[in-house]
Every structure is written in C-alpha cells, then in structure tokens.
C-alpha cells in the first residue's frame, strides 16, 4: 500500500517501474494464487527495483527469490501454473530466458493445444527486453519476434506507464501463457496516468493497438521504447507539414492488424519502427500481413522497416547509438517513403 502511494511523483505522473509494481501489488492482493518468482525479486527488491516493497508486504510464500537456474525455476513456475497457481516468472532480462525457452514454448505455450484444452497454463513471463545502455551483445537482444512466432503464447510490449499497468494486470488475469516484454530504459520514464487507470480493476485488453497520434500522411507502427522516438520524430515532421499517425502496438501477438489496415487505408504509407533485428522480425510480419490484406491496394509506396542494425550489439557508445534507430533515422525513412 505504501509503495503505491509513493508511486506518484509530485507532478502527478508515474514512472513505468512503479506502474508495474502497482499492477503486481494489486493482483497479488486480489488473488491469493498469484505469486512472483525470479532472481533477486524479494530481498533485493528486484534487480531493477520493479518489485520493490512486495516481499516486505507479502512475504516469502508469495515473493520467491530463486537460485540462478533459469531452466529449473521456469519449469517450476510452469508446473505450478499447471497445478492451479498463477505465477509471475521474472527473467532478469529476456536474454536469460534463452536458457529456459524450452519450458516457455514446449511446456507452457503448447500444452493447452496438446491436451485438447484439458490442461491450462496461466503464467506470465516478464522482464526487460531489448537494448539497454552499454550492456553489449549478450544482454541486448530483442525477443519479440522469437516469442511472437509461436502459437499458444500471447506477447505483450507496453510503452507507457498506463500501458504497463493495464497490460500487466490483463496478463496476470489471463488464463494463458503471456510473454510480457518490458524495457529497462523505460522503467524510469514518468507518464501521466488517466483517472481510469487509478482503479484497481483497470485493465487494457491484450490484442488491441492504440493510435497515440492521429495523422494523415503516413502510418508509423511501433512498440515499446520506440513509440517515444516516433512521437518525437512526428513532432519534428509536423513542423514541415507532415502529419504522422503513430500506432503503439501494445501487443505483438496477436497483432492488431485491423487498426494498422484502417490507418494505412487512410494514409497510404506505412513505416514500421522497432529495436529488433530486421530479418524475420516484427516489421517484416507487419509488412507481410498488410500485403495480404485489403490495405495493400491503398499503398502508394512499398512499406519501409526501420530496425536495429543487423549486428550483435557493440559496446562503445558511438557504435551502440548507431546500432539502433535514432530519431533522425525515423525521420529520414518517413521522408523517403513519402518521397519528399
């Protein structure tokens, strides 16, 4: 309780990490089957302080520190979900989920189908995904495309604090495995929170994108941290008379292709922006889906993908900065797509 009151900054805004904290706190309180496990989630208050105060409030039974054994504790979390609990399994970063990916895919995602609906797996896998700052190649990969490839999973990627709160609550209440991709660089970013989001029953539906900015010239589809970049790029372009419609995906799987199509049918131009690598990625899928649907005939130009550079993440700042989409890259890509 004390934790969530502390969450609001003097400006009335809330940081993403506190929104996540509040979501977990509310769901832990609401349903005694919910529990959190992962490395350093309890006594350390979370490696990135996302679970701050929860162990103090709920104790050892519900907030569990695990040894550094991802495959083991992820399997344990999935088994607990099969037996009727509702675990939140934290990966310190999603890079470490690779050690446990068999449990996520083969034990969690596929089980409901293999058992013909007999065995459900109500679990949330959450943690920071994608690039951070200066953490180099093994700690910077984006897993959106990998997890979103697999039927049986829902894959969610919030941007704002409100996204984080509403989507995490939905994920925890969902009876199916949800991969919840946070972003470390967003944890400390404050956002306005709507009146509605203060409610303990506030949820955002999984599978619906949000139009963050209305526009008429180009549809810019993005997720997570790059929503900020795209909005900044849109502000710059607006001065030149180019109005971008920025769509925050919120959910990667299932992809809200209807919202994208409706927008493309209005703007006739499509640009996707993501931090992940280009090949076989989120942008690639959006382009393929749009091409297969009614919006294709409205395109005045081929769709453009703005992505991370197709290399392992380097360390030096100048190299790292140039490995990811910058605002100037987004602006240039939009202009090229519009042929201006």
């Amino acid at each position: 309780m004390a934790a969530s009151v502390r969450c609001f900054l003097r400006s009335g805004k809330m940081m993403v990490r506190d929104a996540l904290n509040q979501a977990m706190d509310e769901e832990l309180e609401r349903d005694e089957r919910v529990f959190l496990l992962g490395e350093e989630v309890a006594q350390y208050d979370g490696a990135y302080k996302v679970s701050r105060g929860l162990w103090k409030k709920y104790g050892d039974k519900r907030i569990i520190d695990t040894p550094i054994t991802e495959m083991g504790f992820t399997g344990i979390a999935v088994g607990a979900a099969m037996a009727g609990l509702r675990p939140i399994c934290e990966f310190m970063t999603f890079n470490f989920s690779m050690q446990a990916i068999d449990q996520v895919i083969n034990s969690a995602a596929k089980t409901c189908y293999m058992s013909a609906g007999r065995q459900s797996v109500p679990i949330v896998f959450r943690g920071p995904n994608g690039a951070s700052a200066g953490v180099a190649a093994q700690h910077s990969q984006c897993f959106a495309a990998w997890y979103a490839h697999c039927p049986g999973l829902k894959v969610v990627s919030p941007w704002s604090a409100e996204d984080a709160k509403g989507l995490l609550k939905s994920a925890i209440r969902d009876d199916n495995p949800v991969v919840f991709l946070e972003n470390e660089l967003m944890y400390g970013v404050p956002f306005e929170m709507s009146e509605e989001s203060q409610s303990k029953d506030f949820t955002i539906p999984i599978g619906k994108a949000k139009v963050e900015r209305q526009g008429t010239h180009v549809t810019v589809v993005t997720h997570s941290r790059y929503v900020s970049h795209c909005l900044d790029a849109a502000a710059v372009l607006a001065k030149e008379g180019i109005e971008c419609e920025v769509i925050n995906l919120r959910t990667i799987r299932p992809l809200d292709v209807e919202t994208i199509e409706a927008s493309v049918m209005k703007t006739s131009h499509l640009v996707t922006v993501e931090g992940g690598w280009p090949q076989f990625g989120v942008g690639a899928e959006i382009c393929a889906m749009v091409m297969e649907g009614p919006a294709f005939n409205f395109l005045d130009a081929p769709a453009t993908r703005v992505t991370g550079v197709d290399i392992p993440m380097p360390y030096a700042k100048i190299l790292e900065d140039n490995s990811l989409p910058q605002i100037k890259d987004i602006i240039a890509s939009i202009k090229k797509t519009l042929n201006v």
Partner: protein
Amino acid sequence: MSGLSQVLHYSLSLKPLTVYQNKKLKISPFFSPRQGAAAVVSARTYADFTTQATFEIKKCDIHKLDEAPATQVVMTRDEGLKYYRVMQTIRRMELKADQLYKQKIIRGFCHLYDGQEACAVGIEAGINLTDHLITAYRAHGYTYTRGGTVKEIMAELTGRRGGIAKGKGGSMHMYTKNFYGGNGIVGAQVPLGAGVALACQYQGNNELSVSLYGDGAANQGQIFETYNMAALWKLPAIFICENNRYGMGTSVERSAASTDYYKRGDYIPGLRVDGMDVLCVREATKFAADHCRSGKGPMLMELQTYRYHGHSMSDPGVSYRTREEIQEVRGKSDPISLLKDRMLSNNMASVEELKEIDVSVRKEIEDAAQFATTDPEPPLEELCNHIFYNDADLEVRGTNPWTTLKSVS
C-alpha cells in the same frame, strides 16, 4: 467366484491335479512355499483363498537415510488381484499398440512400457489419486494407472476424436486429472513436477508430486537445478528414476560417470529399489511419501527395471543389447510372473482365476482396439481449437492468405 482347483507350484513342472469342491480348497501335496516367501499367515486347509500373506522383499539400498523401507510386507488377495489385473492390462495394451503400429494404424512415436509395469502399478499403490504425477514419453502405463481408460488411450494413439486428448496430442501427450503427461522433451518434466509440488506446498493440501525420469534424462542439468530448489524449499516431491539400463541405445555405463542414480541427488535422501517387484516399489513409494508428507522435503528413488521393447517402435532393441539379456530378464524377473508365482504359491488365487482375468483383459484390449481403429479422426473444423484456454474465439491464418480458420477455446 471362479471354480477352485489345486494350487500348482510353477517352478516344478507338475501336471495339475484338479479337484473341484464346492468353495473349498484341498491343498495339493505338491504345495511348497516359493523361495523367499514366508509361510502363509492364516493357513486353513479347507478354506477359501488366503486373504493376505506376508512377503519378504529385497532390501533397498539407502543414501543419506537412517532406515530403509520394510522388507516384510503384507499383501492382501484383493490387492494382489488388482495389481495383477492392472499390470496385465498395461502389458497387453502395450503389445496391442505394437501390433497396431506395425500395421501402420499408429504412427509417429510410440514408446512401449512392457517390462516396467511394476513401477507404474507399485507407485500408484503407494500414493493416492489426489496426489500428482508427471512422467516423460513412455507414458501409456501411467496414463492408465492415473485414471485414463484403455479405450481413450488407444484412440489417442490412433489419432481419433475419442482419444484422451481428442487426437491432438498422440502417444507422448496424454493427460488426466492430477497427471501432467506425457512429456516429449527429455528432462523437462522434472522441474514441472517440482512446480506441481510447490503448488501443493503453497496450497497446504498435504498432497505430493511424483516426477519420473529415465536413466538417460538423469544427466540433465535442469534435473540438478530442480534437486537444488526442491531441497532448499523442502518441496513435497518424490523424484523417481526409472533405470531401465539404456537411454535409447546408450547403456548407463556409457552415459553416466556415476550410475548410482539414487545417490545423484547428493543432499537428497535416496533409495535404490527392485523395480521388477511391485511390492518393493509400493513399499519404497510409501516410505518416500511419508517422508515428503511430514515436511522433510524431497526424496529420490531409483527403480531398477527393464524394457522388453526397444526405445521406441523404430528401434528393434538388439543392436546395443543381446537377445540373451532380454530373455534372461523375461525368464527370471518378469514383474507379472513374479506376482503370479507369489499369489499361486500362497493360495491367494487359482490358475483358473488368473486365467479369467487374462481373458477379461484381452477382451477389454480387443474392444478398445476395435474402437481405436473405427472411431473417426477429429473433425477438421476443430483443427485450430484449444490454442488458448477460456478465451474469446479467434481467427487463425490457414496455409494461405485466403484461408481463415476459427479457433474456439
């Protein structure tokens, strides 16, 4: 109740002397107790079958324990008949599956359990149906002991809509209440089983979780990760290694630096058990279950057992082991024969009675096979169902952009 006849002693090849007397048994002069069995507790010359007897069983090897399971155990006639029937059902079900596979009516993977029946039956005899169990892919026997019917198991193998998973899962993915499969990825079921144990502990329901794995899986890293957490958190988990001497085609000597699988849990107490003797397995399981339920944490059991078939139906099973070895185990240690001998030589059942059970089991299997070969395949409309649980209907892309399929949860 079947007609009674004189008891035969199997190891002596005597011609049967059949004496029918109204519900009375005349003990054959050729009767003598089987080596290793104690004398019948309640011997009544002109009585019905013995209702229970005490048996001497092999002592378990122990690891980090002060005492071992009992070596003098009681089995009632009813228990014996039940164990016999269940083991025989599993045996015949697996042999029928072999037949159907060779006829190409069962396809894909099929890992048969014949030879190992005492493990599944003994374990179930030591726990309750309200406890939980998970195993790997050699799972048909467990699906049965955990409540599945032969009919729905066989129909799942043949991929029909009447299958226990509606034809969606196949041999390795069968589920019933408190039975979490059937798992195809070697070793993955062990952390899952510990997670089920965590749920038992969390919910305070005094239930426990049995996680099975083979000698091949025993070297998996995730199993050691699981041992660590189970011991640390004192989870009510029994880890059971079914050591049938071969991981696919690799013998234990060629895959493990230490083949003392019951010691591999290190700080977790362990038992090495004769997995061909249903009573040994039962006693060890009860011992382990008591340990877990008293809050002492996990326990490890190694069951020394044997599979007659190869690893799967695509393995003849003789390139890495000799036919002589297989024959020797069949001749000396078959779990069903061991039980049968015990019961016959202790007046607990008659040859005819057991034969009747055999006939009844055979019929059950035949009927199930008939169902499994005639039941239709699942309807195509249900192709995309059950991706999610308790979820809104959703649309699923078919093989091309113009095909949209429906998924109902």
